[in-house]
């Protein structure tokens, strides 16, 4: 009986393991037109082009107070050569946890890179994007891809 009770207690304890979750809210869509020429006819596109400072937000939850690392990677579906894409954190979000890193633009590539580190839950972390290298000489049409955020 005592053993049975102890087994139940131990089983309950083991079920309280924490699996951190990360969610992203929002996407980035940019429209480039003649209005983006730096000085009108005869000039090239302005570069870089930046999103709003809080274009998307990240929520990091269910950490159980543990430390975590967020990595990012880019997966291009159709993206022009010579045009870079970068992101940065523009706020610390809210919560009792901590957050560091990511305040400077990080150039995104196909390989995972460390973007943020911290501990505990944080919500509403604002993210901004920047595209560099756009020119009338290399870009016309629709370009897209995805960014993967992984928390470990």
């Amino acid at each position: 009986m005592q053993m049975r009770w102890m087994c139940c207690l131990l089983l309950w304890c083991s079920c309280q393991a924490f699996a951190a979750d990360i969610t992203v809210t929002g996407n980035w869509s940019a429209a480039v037109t003649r209005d983006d020429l730096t000085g009108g006819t005869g000039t090239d596109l302005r570069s870089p082009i930046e999103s709003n400072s809080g274009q998307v937000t990240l929520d990091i939850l269910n950490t159980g107070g543990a430390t975590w690392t967020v990595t990012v990677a880019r997966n291009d579906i159709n993206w022009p050569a010579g045009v870079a894409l970068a992101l940065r954190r523009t706020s610390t979000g809210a919560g009792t946890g901590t957050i560091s890193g990511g305040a400077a633009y990080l150039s995104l590539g196909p390989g995972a890179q460390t973007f943020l580190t911290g501990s505990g839950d944080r919500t509403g972390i604002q993210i901004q994007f920047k595209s560099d290298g756009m020119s009338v000489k290399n870009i016309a049409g629709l370009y897209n891809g995805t960014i993967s955020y992984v928390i470990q």
Partner: protein
Amino acid sequence: MRIVRKQQIALAVATALGLTAITGAHAAGSAVQSFNVAVAAINELSVSGNPGTLTVNSATAGSAPNAATDASTTYAITSNETNKKITAQLDVDMPSGITLGVLLAAPTGATATSQSLSTVAADVVTGISKLNESAKSITYTLSATAAAGTLTSAGKQVTFTIIDGGA
């Protein structure tokens, strides 16, 4: 016997705590966000202003009157597409015996052709692809035959258009 049971319980607790510590390590979560950039077709053409008055008023005896030229104006162009061309046309045809010609400086990689202007659009620059350039010269040439007689001052409007170059 009691001692054995106590020892067994202690082992179970330690093992469970160890298991908890392992499963307390975070299962990796992930999220995916999309991005897209839509770049519109951009084809912009502008001219710096109007040329001065072109006047044919001299000749060498025995020859046609001397042509008058003006190269005081320029054009600027931006295109992010391939195989575009510039055409030029007048609003009203020139009188018989009087010709207004135009020659544009070609931007990089394109070809310019001198044309006599009329109300029919003529290709003045072809093979324009993905460029932005400014201060490209526009040279007008007004010529007249002796038979054309005299012409009181008349204003003309030249329209330059950037369009698809075609096959």
